[in-house]
């Protein structure tokens, strides 16, 4: 496999083309903020942004990403992502925390396209990101809070 652009840095990738991005991030590059939860795009714990759009790293082979820009939680530096993270901290959203990287990136992507999302839009954007601690009440509130702060 060739190069990948992750968090605005270029990396030479050793893994085979069909290796899922998740395991390249975690095991080859040491970017462990992106989590394994299901391996089948069913839980959202591995959500990263590919050209700004949420994508499940556990089912995305690295070969599909050669020309794209990948953002993980470690590189979530945009104004919107920072507003989301700050809202998460203000409302103390995280419990076990394991799903939160994926939740935060999915929320940031939503706010990039919908500056003032409705509850229905939040449902649609966030329903694929499971949280077993059920921090959902605070996730919703934090997205609204971040939206307010960004206006």
């Amino acid at each position, binding site marked *: 496999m060739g190069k990948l652009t992750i968090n605005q840095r270029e990396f030479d990738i050793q893994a085979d083309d069909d290796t899922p991005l998740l395991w390249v991030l975690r095991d080859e590059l*040491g970017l462990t903020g992106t*989590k394994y939860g299901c391996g089948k795009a069913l839980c959202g714990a591995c959500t990263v942004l590919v050209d700004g759009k949420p994508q499940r790293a556990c089912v995305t082979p690295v070969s599909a990403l050669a020309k794209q820009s990948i953002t993980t939680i470690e590189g979530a530096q945009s104004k919107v992502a920072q507003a989301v993270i700050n809202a998460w901290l203000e409302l103390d959203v995280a*419990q076990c*925390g*394991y799903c939160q990287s994926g939740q935060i990136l999915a929320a940031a992507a939503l706010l990039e396209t919908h500056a003032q999302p409705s509850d229905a839009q939040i*449902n649609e954007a966030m329903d694929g990101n499971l949280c077993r601690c059920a921090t959902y009440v605070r996730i919703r509130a934090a997205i609204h809070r971040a939206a307010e702060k960004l206006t």
Partner: protein
Amino acid sequence: MSSAVNKLSRRDFLKAGLAVSSGLTLGLRLGSVPADEAAPFMPNAFVRIGADNSVTIIAKHVEMGQGIHTGLATLLAEELDADWAQIRVEAAPADSSRYNNLNWGGNQGTGGSSSINNAWLQMREAGAAARAMLVAAAAAQWQVAASDISVSKGQLRHAASGREGSFGDFCAAAARLPVPGAVKLKDPQEFVYIGHPLARTDAVAKTHGQALYTIDLHLPGMRTAVMLHPPRIGAVPATVDDKAARAIKGVHAVIRLDQGVAVVAENFWAAKRGRDALKVDWDESRAITLDSEDQRTQYRELASRTGHSLRADGDVAAALTTSHKRVEAVYELPYLAHATLEPMNCIVQISQGGCELWYGAQAMTSDQNHVARLLGLTPAKVKINQLFAGGSFGRRADLQADYVLETVRIAQALGDGQPLKLLWTREDDMRGGRYRPAATHALHGAVNAQGEVQAWQQRIVCQALRGGGVPKNGKVDKTLHEGASDLPYRIGNLAVDVHIPEPGVPVLWWRSVGHTHTAFAVESFIDELAHAAGRDPLELRRSLLRDDPRRLAVLELAAAAGDWGKPLAKGHGRGIAVHRSFGTWVAEVVEVSMGEDERFSVERVTVAVDCGLAVNPDVVRAQMEGGVGYALSAALAGEITFKNGAVVQDNFDSYPVLRLSQMPRIDVHIVPSAEAPSGVGEPGVPPLAPALANALFAASGKRWRRLPFKTSTAV
């Protein structure tokens, strides 16, 4: 001062401190390494103060989402009068002589919502002792009376002379002073942290992808193992063809164990590809053949016959026969998986004469003993480094140490002394057993012409978590009947009996344990009796709860805040339930809206909780929200079933869990209290399912007695 804090010598404490610090080179992002390792002030096993003015609190309970690191830090920081900004938290290693759960004798561990309760005085005393020594050091240096020195937010002050200094300034001098034998604790009116919302100590790491879970830890030379487990519980490998697996790039070894076959590789992906390439024939001669539909029939049949009696007040048979109105109901609950988002995993390194492990452990001492026994070591030679757990809900407290021993067995077979990580896939985790047991409750009740409850007979069919059937001494595992045999309602004729089948399914504690099934049956049936008696369900409970003021108080609070008795929109219904578990009382009012074909949505849940003094009200609220969500997930869809001894579900498509769009509005009300704090991790769970069933009845006139609540199961 409690003996638990004070019994150890200074040398012991320093030893403990060093052990913790060296463990911490790996648990770096759990807390922070003190800048000045040379002269830490460590007056006891729970706090270390550095010359850099850092205050490191050593947490003896695993942080698995419940907020216990924050809670323990709050207790200690309160009595130390530290500044919250200078607090760091570090996870304690396995060492039951220092870090035992005071509610569990000599055992170190986390569970039963016991953490805050057992550590309430211990952590405060540890903080007060450190404070007293810092004050004594300052008094000696300033040549003033200790009683004239005040401490606030990490600063010591002598008002008359205007002198002041930080903890860091005095930690070297304090370290040379004797540890006080007795300390005075604050009056609750002086609390500045306890009872106030404080930001969680793990929040920043967890919102930046920096928190270190077992899955994230990489040690030099470490390999990763993925297991192939048998499809049917109890099967063992007969023949293993590993040629294709070994040919895969990165695969290092294939290890055959009794419980399956491990593929060990350079990384997870290679190990998983190797695992998928294995060809294994299983010897299923000892495998279970359980089928869930057959089991359901068998449990219902058992529930129709008298079982082992746990309680028999008055004359239930006579009261049932002569009653004005008799009510009968059978409630059924399935097996449930914990389905933590971080699947089970563990890291181990076996060395000459020792063994070191890294993972999130609820049952520290039990795991340590199991590993020691397997390797022929003394427990002290088994070092366990505690890491964050990506959820647990009871799963990481298996008293057989299932996945921990599996990891050790693979490393033992490899015999290379290198670190090894075992990572279960989601499918391994879902099919790995250790489920909340399935249960069937058969209830018979009677009301008289005046609407008074005359009889209550409850028969429970459920596996025991420990041991097999009814033991010879008659002492039945309380997880079959807690919350039922101690029924709070005052009913003169009351009988409870149990059947304990042994279907061979490994079962385990699941967030609120026995209360998950007993509360559903009890709080559904009291509602059914109320309707049969023509009485309001709240009013009937109130009439039967005399002499139980704390239960009554949460019930009244939830009812008032949840608009009980107020008009509802068309198609809406409200249900109520109250339950005490782990020393905490919780009442919940659920409001549902009913659509066509019995499709419903949960609109709102109002929670009232009495957990004694709420150490951190925001964490209490979070645990109630999470408990409601976890219980709602199970009520709407949670179900593990068996076909010919194999688990049917394997991932989040076949075992759906609650999603954001299904999460109702939740309002949490905390009863003001000066009582010692009790736990909040589990008690939010039990009232949800019955309150929901009762709300569904109010909205539709139909009863949902079988979990999960599918449209087809209403009667």
